[in-house]
């Protein structure tokens, strides 16, 4: 009987230890960042962008990993149509910081001021595009 109680206690302690470790893990942090990023995306980006449709701006679901200026059926500015880079985390963070420094002559007039906000928006876009092919 005592052995059973000790075993259950040990299992409970182990479980809580694992949960606490998980709570501080990078994986959970990324998930939390993506959740916050969704709120920011809906607040800051959806005037022009949707995930799965071209509107004033191009669809963004598969932007991570996509070559710049290649969203299918979207009419880009000449500047962005001629860009050579691919959208990875660093490029997207730089873009959200100041689009004009990344691609001079582009058309997006908005910037995201906070570094944490930029990180979360990119985390959200990364999560939304995971496992999907780009629309080149």
């Amino acid at each position, binding site marked *: 009987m005592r052995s059973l109680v000790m075993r259950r206690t040990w299992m409970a302690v182990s479980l809580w230890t694992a949960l606490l470790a998980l709570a501080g893990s990078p994986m959970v942090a990324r998930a939390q960042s993506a959740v916050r990023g969704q709120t920011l995306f809906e*607040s800051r980006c959806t005037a022009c962008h*949707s995930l799965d449709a071209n509107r004033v701006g191009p669809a963004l679901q598969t932007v991570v990993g996509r070559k710049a200026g290649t969203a299918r059926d979207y009419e880009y500015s000449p500047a962005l149509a001629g860009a050579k880079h691919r959208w990875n985390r660093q490029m997207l963070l730089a873009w959200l910081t100041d689009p004009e420094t990344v691609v001079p002559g582009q*058309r997006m007039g908005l910037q995201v001021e906070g570094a944490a906000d930029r990180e979360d928006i990119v985390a959200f876009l990364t999560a939304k595009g995971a496992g999907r092919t780009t629309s080149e």
Partner: protein
Amino acid sequence: MTSIVQTLSGTTAPSSSIARRAFMGRTGTLSAVAVALLAGQDAMAQGMSADTSKDLGILNVALGLEHEAINAYQLGAGSGLLQKGVLDVAVRFQSDHKAHRDALITTIQKLGGTPVMEKKLEEYAKALKADTLRNQTDVLDLAARLELGAINAYLGVIPAFGSKDLAKVAARLAADETMHFTVLTSTLGRPLPAGALSFGA
């Protein structure tokens, strides 16, 4: 033309004070020329030098938003899903966006640019997933989301402005859209925002 050109007139600082301000050419800003044109003061706009290509790009993005809003209300009005009183308000809001559109087109042309063209209604319907609208609530929810996006877009460019006059123009446009959003959410029976400073956050 009864439009935002008139709405915004009479509030812009004297041209000499605007011309002195070194805010032209920054990303996310319009030039003093654009401010003057939006304010309906052609004489003030003439003779100013500015990097108008940046201004034109931003003005055309704004025009694209207005085209989309006009067509969204058109889809709602033509859906047969709106009750008479709600339909009247939707048409009124659409007329506001048409006034914005006309002012933007005039400004872009005066700056020597080419206004971005309106797409076909079917293209807006596809992008906005109009085929999923089932009732009046769906239509109003779509309109509210678009208006909220426009509010945040206008508020979002304010920090980039070097000109207090331009910031005021953007703020007044945001106020226009906020009026629309407030009426729409009230009609939807939704609660007030949970706290202060909810817009532009």
